[in-house]
């Protein structure tokens, strides 16, 4: 079983090495790839020093394109399972191991680490969203559940594990703007087994969220349009015809 853990990173020179070290400790067998999304700082150098493989995009392409690069790399290089987590230190690497276990045991094709799942244990220093974020989260949660007829609690989680079926799908289709939400919808529509697992997440190490109320509203509106359009995409069975 070959496993790839990839980390999309954009200007994360301060935290990327710590995250890599954490992953290497938790998953000594796995290969670690940092997808450097056109960083202007020393993210790529720090990652290489920490012993990770580095795939550098020549210019900033957005999270979706960076994640797709990871899936494409995993697919091309014959990995059986892959997982990704954020480079800012929000995601404890030990939790990634639990996600990967689900893939290895073939209980799901795609596993999402959920912050809000009822099983997640809250403790001090754990992740607590701001008010505007909570509104956005519940709106997306509602509409994604409506669209997929499957309950999702954490629609924007950037901690996931996947098998080769998902690699093949995501390396072909992955929205650059609404990577997390649309990819969930897509995976469910293609008949893949998507599962949520409660995980512990930490407070963002540094830097405030970029969302102001107006931007949040626009973000939500854009997300809803993306979801609506996604409902009209062909399903696998129809696409094969």
């Amino acid at each position, binding site marked *: 079983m070959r496993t790839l853990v990839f980390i999309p990173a954009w200007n994360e020179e301060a935290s990327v090495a710590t995250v890599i070290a954490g992953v290497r400790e938790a998953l000594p067998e796995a290969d670690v*790839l940092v997808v450097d999304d056109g960083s202007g700082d020393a993210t790529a150098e720090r990652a290489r020093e920490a012993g990770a493989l580095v795939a550098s995009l*020549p210019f900033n392409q957005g999270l979706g394109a960076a994640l797709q690069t990871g899936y494409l790399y995993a697919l091309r290089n014959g990995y059986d399972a892959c997982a990704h987590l954020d480079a800012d230190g929000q995601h404890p690497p030990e939790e990634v191991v639990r996600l990967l276990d689900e893939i290895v045991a073939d209980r799901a094709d795609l596993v999402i680490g959920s912050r809000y799942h009822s099983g997640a244990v809250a403790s001090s220093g754990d992740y607590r969203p701001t008010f505007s974020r909570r509104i956005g989260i519940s709106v997306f949660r509602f509409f994604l559940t409506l669209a997929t007829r499957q309950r999702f609690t954490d629609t924007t989680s950037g901690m996931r594990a996947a098998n080769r079926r998902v690699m093949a799908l995501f390396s072909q289709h992955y929205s650059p703007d609404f990577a997390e939400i649309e990819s969930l919808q897509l995976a469910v529509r293609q008949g893949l087994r998507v599962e949520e697992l409660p995980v512990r997440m930490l407070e963002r190490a540094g830097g405030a969220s970029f969302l102001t109320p107006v931007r949040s509203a626009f973000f939500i509106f854009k997300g809803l349009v993306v979801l609506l359009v996604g409902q009209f995409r062909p399903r696998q069975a129809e696409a094969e015809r």
Partner: protein
Amino acid sequence: MRALALAAAQAEPQVHLTSQTRIVAAVIAIFFMLLILDLIRRDRLQERYSVIWFVAGLGMLAGAAFPGLLELLADAMGVRNTNVALFSIVLLLLLGLALNFSVIMSRQAAQITRLAQERAIEQARRGTADRPANGNGSAAEQALESEEKRL
């Protein structure tokens, strides 16, 4: 009130294009088509994107040369004023062109992204080449390629 407005509209005579407008339009159309030819000649515009502009120029010329065509269209649209019909048609045409460009732009954005990803992956792969081999021989790669197609 509505009946009154309708009556007033009916009393208005139909507005036609003046000869002056027609001459100006014809000159602009010819100038426009020459500009496109020149852009193609100097490799500033690819032929495949010029066809639609050429058609637009020809349409403009046709409208100027045969105003009857335009009036026929105006009648079909239920517009009394030929100038208004002309504007609406041009507006619709521009809308279509703008949409067409958005489609082309989206495709090119996707192509650029994929190109960047391929380069990044190739670079990361070269990074692995220095390390002990992972059993990624050519046979393994061929098997992967066929699997990629199957999936």
